[in-house]
């Protein structure tokens, strides 16, 4: 009896365990499908792969937009990726009917378009029509960063993103603004408290996690999947640009606090230096951009941007950083051609390279080359008279865009770490005496150049 009982219990328990196992499996599957299929999994279940709903929504949206004369262009990375593969064919036959819905039916949750702010009036009529057509829409507005400068201005908030939802598909319309420095900017997508968090799966949006900076694109009118739409002329170039478009706004509020503590130098000398530094930076940026050399604000110039959103008037030079992998031999002739003669060259491409160019009236342009190691990045310094070498260590960083003296330039995204590595925890306090060999908190003695190499690694003009 006892034995049987035990067996029964055992069997029962096994059964229960099996049930649980099955349940677990089922639940996990459900969870997985929920995660991938997002909101629209139902639709996909009916029409796997090919789905004309998306195409219809896009067509409706384009109709809506063109009825209000609003010029938009396609920036959806998924579609542009597909388009890019067939770009030659699409370019050559702008009107040809397409046999199958290849691009706009591809599975995705959103289709992303861009709109240039200045090309349309903010009219209410658009939304009325959109509602009549069955669209639900969401508008995301925020502060206008162009007014966020040193003076306390508060304008009306500007629209940064629109989302139009119809049936199971949504259109994400990103508003681009032109900013000083001749570039386009789009804002971050931030929901206000009262907004519907589940309007669309916001996390899957391709734009909006961070603000972004772009060059003004050249556009091309094409017909894909029988829809006429503007796309960037060079989709792969746009996608490449998109992958590192993150933009950092200058910390205007902190800069104002800084100037409260340390009033700005308004002397004529300071004004003059700032003017020269600005024009030197513009010239350097033009020259390096023409060569396709990626650079960023380094040392004092970076500190000036980060701390006070301006050139530090007592810094006396302009500092740029360049990864050594981006080094080009043309750099020196290009600068000479631009009217900036080489002042000195320290180190060599393999080690501690540093170039200095003479700008107008004693303002110097320093270009430091950065060497990447596994866990840090460094650049070198050389003392001309002794041949001593120094090494400045930085934690690894990536590059972001920012605006500085009406220029779109790179800065390290992890600016605080970068500045702290260079200037220590007291970087907020202005220091007028600075010794590049001992003041930086990340400097290391790095031996001496062998005497027979001096002619090569220490060149002063």
């Amino acid at each position, binding site marked *: 009896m006892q034995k049987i009982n*035990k067996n029964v*219990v*055992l069997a029962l*328990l*096994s059964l*229960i*365990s099996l049930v*649980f*196992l099955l*349940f*677990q499996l089922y*639940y*996990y599957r459900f*969870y997985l499908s*929920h*995660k991938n299929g997002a909101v629209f999994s139902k639709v996909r279940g009916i029409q796997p792969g090919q789905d004309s709903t998306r195409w219809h929504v896009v067509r409706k949206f384009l109709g809506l937009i063109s009825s209000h004369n609003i010029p938009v262009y396609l920036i959806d990375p998924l579609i542009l990726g597909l388009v890019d593969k067939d770009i030659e064919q699409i370019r050559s036959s702008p009107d040809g009917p397409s046999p199958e819905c290849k691009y706009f039916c591809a599975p995705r949750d959103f289709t992303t378009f861009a709109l240039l702010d200045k090309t349309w*009036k903010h*009219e*209410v*009529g658009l939304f009325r029509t959109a509602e009549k057509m069955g669209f639900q829409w969401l508008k995301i507005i*925020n502060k*206008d960063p*162009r*007014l966020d*400068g040193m*003076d*306390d*201005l*508060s*304008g*009306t908030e500007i629209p940064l993103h629109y989302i139009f939802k119809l049936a199971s598909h949504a259109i994400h319309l990103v508003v681009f603004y*032109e*900013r*000083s*420095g*001749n570039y386009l900017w789009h804002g*971050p*997508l*931030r*929901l*206000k*408290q*009262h907004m519907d*968090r*589940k309007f669309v*799966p*916001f*996390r899957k949006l391709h734009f*909006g*996690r961070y603000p972004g900076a772009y060059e003004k694109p050249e556009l091309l009118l094409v017909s894909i999947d029988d829809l006429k739409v503007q796309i960037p002329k060079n989709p792969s170039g746009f996608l490449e640009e998109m992958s590192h478009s993150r933009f950092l706004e200058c910390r205007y509020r902190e800069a104002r606090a800084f100037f409260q503590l340390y009033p700005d130098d*308004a002397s*004529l000398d300071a*004004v003059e230096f*700032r*003017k020269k530094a600005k024009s030197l930076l513009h010239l350097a940026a033009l020259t390096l951009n023409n060569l396709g050399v990626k650079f960023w604000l380094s040392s004092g110039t970076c500190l000036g941007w980060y701390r006070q959103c301006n050139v530090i008037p007592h810094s006396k030079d302009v500092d740029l950083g360049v990864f050594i992998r981006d080094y080009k031999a043309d750099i020196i002739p290009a600068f000479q051609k631009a009217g900036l003669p080489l002042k000195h060259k320290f180190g060599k491409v393999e080690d501690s390279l540093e170039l200095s160019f003479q700008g107008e009236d004693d303002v110097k342009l320093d270009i430091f080359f950065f060497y990447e190691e596994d866990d840090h990045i460094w650049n070198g310094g050389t003392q001309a008279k002794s041949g001593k070498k120094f090494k400045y260590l930085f934690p690894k960083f990536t590059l972001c865009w920012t605006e500085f003296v*009406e220029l779109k330039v790179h800065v390290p995204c992890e600016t605080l770490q970068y500045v702290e590595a260079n200037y220590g925890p007291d970087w907020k306090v202005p220091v007028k005496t600075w010794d590049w060999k001992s003041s930086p908190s990340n400097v290391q003695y790095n031996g001496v150049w062998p005497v027979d190499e001096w002619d090569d690694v220490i060149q002063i003009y």
Partner: protein
Amino acid sequence: MDEWKPNPTIKPHKKRSWYLAWKYKLMNQRALRKLCQTGAVLFLLVTVIVNIKLILDTRRAAYEEEEESAQDYDDEMLNVEVPRHPVSNKKVLDVEVYSSRSKVYVAVDGTTVLEDEAREQGRGIHVIVLNQATGHVMAKRVFDTYSPHEDEAMVLFLNMVARGRILIFTIKDEGSFHLKDTAKNVLKSLGSQVAPFLSWRDMWTFVGKKGGEVYGEKHAKSPALSTWGDPVLLKTEVHLTSVEDAECHWPDTELNHRRKRFCSKVEGYGSVCSCKDPTPIEFNPDPLKDNKVFDVPVAVIAGNRPNYLYRMLRSLLSAQGVNPQMITVFIDGYYEEPMDVVELFGLSGIQHTPISIKNARVSQHYKASLTATFNLFPDAKFAVVLEEDLDISVDFFSFLSQSIHLLEEDESLYCISAWNDQGYEHTAEDPSLLYRVETMPGLGWVLRKSLYKDELEPKWPTPEKLWDWDMWMRMPEQRRGRECIIPDVSRSYHFGIVGLNMNGYFHEAYFKKHKFNTVPNVQLKNVESLRKDAYETEIHRLLGEAEVLDHSKNPCEDSFVPDTEGKVYVMFIRMEQEADFTTWTQLAKCLHIWDLDVRGNHKGLWRLFRKKNHFLVVGVPASPYSSKKPSSVTPIYMEPPAKEEGAAAAVPAVAAAEQT
């Protein structure tokens, strides 16, 4: 299995021992089995628990996922919920009104909406307009009816207030001396019993509905000329109406939405809020052909003079070739009403936290506005700068469109201005004529971006310097010998009477009689000859054909210039060196033109019109045009009146800052 088979060869006795062994073995195995069973049970239990936990976990994770799906995208600013006042369904407002010699106040439902106990100001009749449905204050005015003409302004204002609004009146100090019968009758028509008999230093409060009932009135007579009436405090109740009754029923359009929002908030703008046939708020003037300034941003600098701003924007939006999208209104301070006006016209407005005081505040506001303009329109090469107290000529943009290329091409130019300092009714004539002048008139002008960004912005006066921005811009360090282009007949009109450096007398003397162009599409005639060198040729040609006036006559007399039309005359005055304006100032004074400082000169030459003749004044010998003087002519010298020595220093300071 083999072991389990009984061995057929085995003996029974052996069999038993095997059985024992087997039994023993079995017993051992049972223990094992028990152990296994317990183990299994335990394992199963654990599985069950783990399973349940897992289910709960996934469930929660899934739930959180949904919850958080947008968390990255949350606005980091915590939107502090503004505690909204519970929508009061109260139909009755308690109103308290106090009138006395030194203090007035008005409280609505316990909230003070007016309190004035400042000495030496706020004299006269204070008027408050309340919305009859919400009880919100829509307008607040004070009319100093002790002084002349203020009662006319009050009548004008009261006539503009829509029917049904609640009006509250209270007198501070004195309000009857220049309160004429017309005004008294208007007050009487509102239901006041006392108004017709208001007299010297009476105290008076009144609450009533326009075109409707009277809620209360109190009055205290002054017992004697030298004393005031006793303070009066009126407490009364006002019954609110429904919102529908308080609003007009305009057709449902986007424009009327704006109108509705505006009209439910503020009062005193007249027909824009009238229910029947309201005045338009969109103008659609004719576009300009080949408009070169369509993409030029327009910055309107404003303070807290919403009625001025309203008038200004109306004229601006009616000018041909205007592009409303390029207009930004910069309001100095967080004032609501100017912003309401901006929104009424569907324009964009920006408020600026006031920095510093007086003139420096204006100057900081200018800087912020200009910087913001070039930030908002990074492509722009120019900006048009306007002020809130200007009327804009119908051909303002046409004038700029025809001349703006000069500012781009001629380095010797500082600005283009719509204002001619010397262009009065009797001294300006030709709307198609332009001049080059060494002074910067402002009052509607075009600024080059490069000038601002490279020169002015970096060294703009800091907030602690109480400078006028325009005086600063006129300083030689900034102007550096460059000139401005101005029209003979101004394209703007300065109507502001109240302002930082402005008062009625000053306006009457220097601005009221200014000529203002009203002709559309004027074709400018000498644009190319305004370039630096061409202008010299032009001047020499003019001087060559000019008739020299009779220098023995008094230049102040009307007969100095013959009664002709369309001729060119020249006179020579004494001007020892470049900065010697003694005679010019006296001449300007007697000609009733701008004499507070020197304006409108070009190398010691002034150009104006007298009796429809072009009239040139050359300063000898400082001007390079002195060579044109016939040797027989002695330059006229006019001595300044001796007693003004002391005052002279103070006057330019007043003049300095008139443009605010």
